[in-house]
């Protein structure tokens, strides 16, 4: 029952979910997921993001807070602060912001 936001979809506003979410489109505003969040390559998120875990392949402009872990994959782009217990930044990821792992 995972939520999938497809590539052509643009959501502007507050998005809240208690299940896994996969974003392939555009989300602007606020994105809060009580579960794993996957942002695929090509997706654009201009929002503050909260999730248990985040796997980023696309682009986020906003602060990220994860209770578990954040993984920035190759080709991803993050402009904003990260607050998570575990962080990985793959070779090729673009990141501008601060990291706080003391959650």
């Amino acid at each position, binding site marked *: 029952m995972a*939520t999938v936001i*497809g*590539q052509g979809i643009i959501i502007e*506003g*507050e998005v809240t*979910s208690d299940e896994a979410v996969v974003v392939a489109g555009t989300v602007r505003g606020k994105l809060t997921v009580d579960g794993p969040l996957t942002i695929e390559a090509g997706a654009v998120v201009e929002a503050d993001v909260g999730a248990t875990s985040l796997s980023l392949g696309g682009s986020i402009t906003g602060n990220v807070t994860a209770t578990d872990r954040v993984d920035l994959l190759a080709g991803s782009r993050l402009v904003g602060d990260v607050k998570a217990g575990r962080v990985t930044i793959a070779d090729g990821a673009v990141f501008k912001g601060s990291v706080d792992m003391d959650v």
Partner: protein
Amino acid sequence: MSDVSRLGRGLVIRGSIRGEGDIEIDGRVEGVVDVDGDLTLTESARVRIDDGELSGRRVSIRGAVAGNIRGATAIVLEDGARVVGDLAAPSIGIRPGGLLRGHVATGDAESGVPTRGRADRSAKVAAARPAAKAAAKALPYVAVPPPRLASQGASPRLVSQGVASPRLASQGVASPRLASQEVASPRASAKVSGRVASTQRNAPEEDAVPTPRAKPARGRAEAPAPVMPSLKKGQKGQLKRKAGH
């Protein structure tokens, strides 16, 4: 792209959803939905449109919607649909079990106004039959028109509209065949426009007789007169006011 998006049951979106692609909505949406693809609302969908419309190509509804709906090709209310709001689409279907309270306008998607006049008769008759059947099937209770209309001995052409006619109500819903036969009158227009209200046992109180005054305001905004091209001049003026269903 035309991959299917799914907005799962635990999802709540407050804001607008736009773009291209088909969407299946299982969760809650409050705001505006304006998509260039097919929309499917499942039973657990709860959509409230604040400012605008729920707009898609083919809109199929099994859940609850508060707000106006526009379909570029069709709107279908399935069993389990609960809609409070207006429907506008070239083709509208209300399956048994679908609940609707609002204004229904089939016909030209752009203008939203049902067209009168002599277009191709066979096409209109063919399209009118399923529309009248769907309307007849969906309404367990049909609002009774004001007394004046009934006393005129509602003309067969009036009954052929299939919506809110005294004859149809008295014979019960089990006469879709009758409706379709009468619809086959050559003057019947395929476009159905009117007010639809279906009821359910535990639904809130429903107007037994809709106030005649309230209707014409809506009908007027939609079209100069409801689709009754065949009436004589004398009758038209009176019926214009009454038949704003």
